[in-house]
């Protein structure tokens, strides 16, 4: 019994989903269409329900940190306070409209979120300085194309020296298009192969892949 639950049920269910969603994609049929849409909605609901596993994982970890007084344990308490504030603020009223929630999200969450994203600037320039050197033929090609594209991208250049952006424009519109599409195509093949392995019940990685 447990073996069926362990392997056969998940793999059969997955194969059935592949079959339904694939046939829906090719055939005109309203019942298929509704079933497919329902399946997608179900995945959203199931995933939302399961999200608590993640929250519990964090809670267990932080409680242990606080109990053992590990470094910065007091900040973990602060984290739990913020969690409760936003969770309560998000639920009261219509979801996500209470003043408490919007104030915290606008002034605290947005500020940190945007700042963490903007940290990419420091990373991208550091990586740029560290790695953009003509160490090999590969690197040389990478550096040279990046160089022309950057010139092409300076807002000032197009206005002042229209000729300076010609090579960059050629790299963007001609030379890099072929490989871009090649990558798109092969990634698609990998993905389709993945789906077909599930359909043929040959891939157990959909539930972790360990027995």
């Amino acid at each position, binding site marked *: 019994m447990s073996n069926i639950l362990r392997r056969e049920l998940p793999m059969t269910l997955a194969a059935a989903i592949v079959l339904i969603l*694939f046939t829906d*994609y*090719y*055939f*005109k049929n309203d019942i298929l269409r509704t079933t497919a849409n329902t399946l*997608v909605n179900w*995945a*959203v609901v199931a*995933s*939302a329900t*399961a*999200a*608590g*596993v*993640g*929250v519990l*994982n*964090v809670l267990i*970890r932080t409680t*242990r940190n606080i109990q053992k007084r590990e*470094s910065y344990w007091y900040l973990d308490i602060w984290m739990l306070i913020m969690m409760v504030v936003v969770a309560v603020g998000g639920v009261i009223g219509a979801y996500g409209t209470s003043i408490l929630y919007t104030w915290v999200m606008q002034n605290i969450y947005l500020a*940190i*979120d945007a700042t*963490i*994203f903007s*940290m*990419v600037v420091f*990373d*991208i320039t*550091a*990586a*740029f300085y*560290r*790695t*953009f050197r003509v160490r090999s033929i590969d690197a040389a090609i*990478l550096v040279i194309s990046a160089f022309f594209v950057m010139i092409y991208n300076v807002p000032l250049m197009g206005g002042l020296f229209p000729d300076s952006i010609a090579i960059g424009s050629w790299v963007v519109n001609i030379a890099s298009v072929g490989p*871009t599409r090649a*990558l*798109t*195509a*092969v*990634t698609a*093949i*990998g*993905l*389709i*192969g*993945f789906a*077909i*392995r599930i*359909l*043929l019940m*040959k*891939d157990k*990685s*959909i*539930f*972790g*892949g*360990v027995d």
Partner: protein
Amino acid sequence: MIAIIRQVLISGRIFQLIFMVVTIITIFWYIEAIKRGKVVTLRSIPALDAIDEATGRCAEMGRPVHFTPGYTQGGLYNADMGPQVMAGLVILQKVASSAAKRGVSIIVSLNQPEAVPIAEETVRVAYANEGAVSPPKAVRFISTEQYAYVAGVLSMYLEERPAANVLMGFFWSESLQFAEGSNYIGAMTIGGTASASQMAFFAASCDYFLFGEELFAARAYIEKAPDLLGSIVGQDILRILILAITVLTWLAGNFKYTQLVSFLKM
């Protein structure tokens, strides 16, 4: 006949269906062929070979190895990101067993709640195979939100200072944040993604990287199970087919033979 087909099938997808059927048959055929004893050798994927080097380095320095499968918006049902994260989680098996063999502890940072049981199971089994217990707090869900997740991982970098970071899965801007952050703490970085906008950053910033379909092929490369090898061979045959169709459409366009394209678009 054609009229009936047009009634039943959605227009524009008729040839695609033929192509899909051919694909399924090809992959199935080669899986069976490998089972019957056909031998294939895969070209090397250096990034996957480097995983042992990475855990070896961790063992030397007595520090943990860190793994993350990246970000999904929404959850694992996300069509663009979910599959890559799943492909990444497969590589976790290799990382975890390699770490367990060398007695290195592992940290797995996750963005997807649903992936928590998968990762825990993978890590537990890998350590159990070596007769060890999986390290406490190995699998850490951080947040479903992108930059909270980034902050959590970067903070972990600073505190636990892993000696190697394996970043395999789907990434957005965090690709560079993780890879460079890894460089700041002097760790070795192995990156891999099929995310179109981020491969360039892994290419520039990682010690080893893989990209595009290599991510999906990783499982076949690691496990060498006939099912997976067969699928890879089948996909190679498809690539030949795709090249052929591409060249044919190109020639057809050049010689103004429009029937071919209208057939493919049928």
